């Protein structure tokens, strides 16, 4: 339930809505809980960004997820 996925902010659409990129999937999420700019990374939980991540951390965590999914498909 507390699962959270890192994503890159591509576009701020409104005060509290941003288009984010998870790697292969883009989605509009709510950004009420964080102050973010385009190009920054966030951790997304139930459609809301709950914290900012550094770019390096975001990419690192995303790679881990990719590895896990790749392993599951083998």
């Amino acid at each position: 339930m507390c699962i959270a996925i890192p994503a890159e902010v591509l576009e701020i659409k409104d005060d509290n809505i941003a288009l984010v990129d998870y790697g292969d999937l883009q989605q509009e999420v709510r950004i009420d809980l964080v102050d973010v700019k385009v190009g920054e990374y966030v951790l997304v939980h139930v459609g809301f960004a709950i914290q900012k991540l550094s770019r390096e951390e975001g990419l690192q965590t995303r790679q881990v997820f990719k590895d896990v999914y790749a392993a599951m498909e083998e």
Partner: protein
Amino acid sequence: MAGGMEIRKALDEIVDRDYTFMHICGTHEASIARSGLRSVLPEGLKIVMGPGCPVCITPQGEIDAALELAAKGCIIATYGDLMRVPGTNGSLDTCGGDVRVVQGVHKAVEIAKEVPDKEVVFISVGFETTAPTVAATLLTEPPENFSILCSHRFVPPAMKFLLEQGEAKLDGFMLPGHVCVVTGYAMYEQFKVPQVVAGFEPEDILLGLYMLVKQAKEGRADVENAYPRAVERMGNQKAMKMLYEVFEPTDVEWRGFPVIPDSGLKLKPKYEKYDALKKFGVEIKHVEKNSACICDKVLRGIRDPTDCKLFGKACTPRKPVGPCMVSHEGACRIWALYNQKR
């Protein structure tokens, strides 16, 4: 970060007696079971799951309240995990009402805007990670036909209960990473036992276990952070501020636990108009458990899922008896899925 093999070797060297640590997070349990992590731990080192699945710890009386709201004609919007949790008479997926699975609370509000002549109730479960998303939504003034069944819980009061009661004989806690993303971990410093905030990869969990054993062995009782890529000591202050703008602590029952002081959230008077219980005159009733299901003991960390007579027989993921077999985050469901034996 050191690789899993190195941490495992270090664990083998450091474990000198029996240790039992508890994690409080379904995502931790899923990672542990999926990776088969328990099978590589040294003899004597045990990691048990506590009350870390929001769906599992939601008492039956609250499921019954959701069913009553569906029977009154409300559209019920819920996370998918709650659909099959048995209430006293059926579950949301079989109740015949208009029940819709949503990604989050904001999607439930979208439904309310699409059908202004219908009442939409969001079943608002979840720990500190999730509650701020609901607070943020209520702060943006959803329509009048929207309300929530407020079933949020806070982790630290349950830990306090477990420590005071002592039945699980714990040497320390692995703290839930994404709860701590929001709350930080300063509030856990009140507990005088070893605690480590851990991430969700098998390596993160092994590292967390190593740090816990080291603390216990050295007789320290600190809160250490093994998930610094996402967690800061004070968490997300903006999210916490929004949470307390909308909610205040209240005493609530957890499944498997008695009423725990200040462990739940209720809407502050200004936001009471979004309280589905008040709006529709529904009461939460205490329901005595009457089956052989031992979810209550599993949630307190004193029994393993495989200790249950029903596990894998009368109670399976296909035909669950208790909530721990329903939710993807429930210990029983996870153990059944990954054929976990100990």
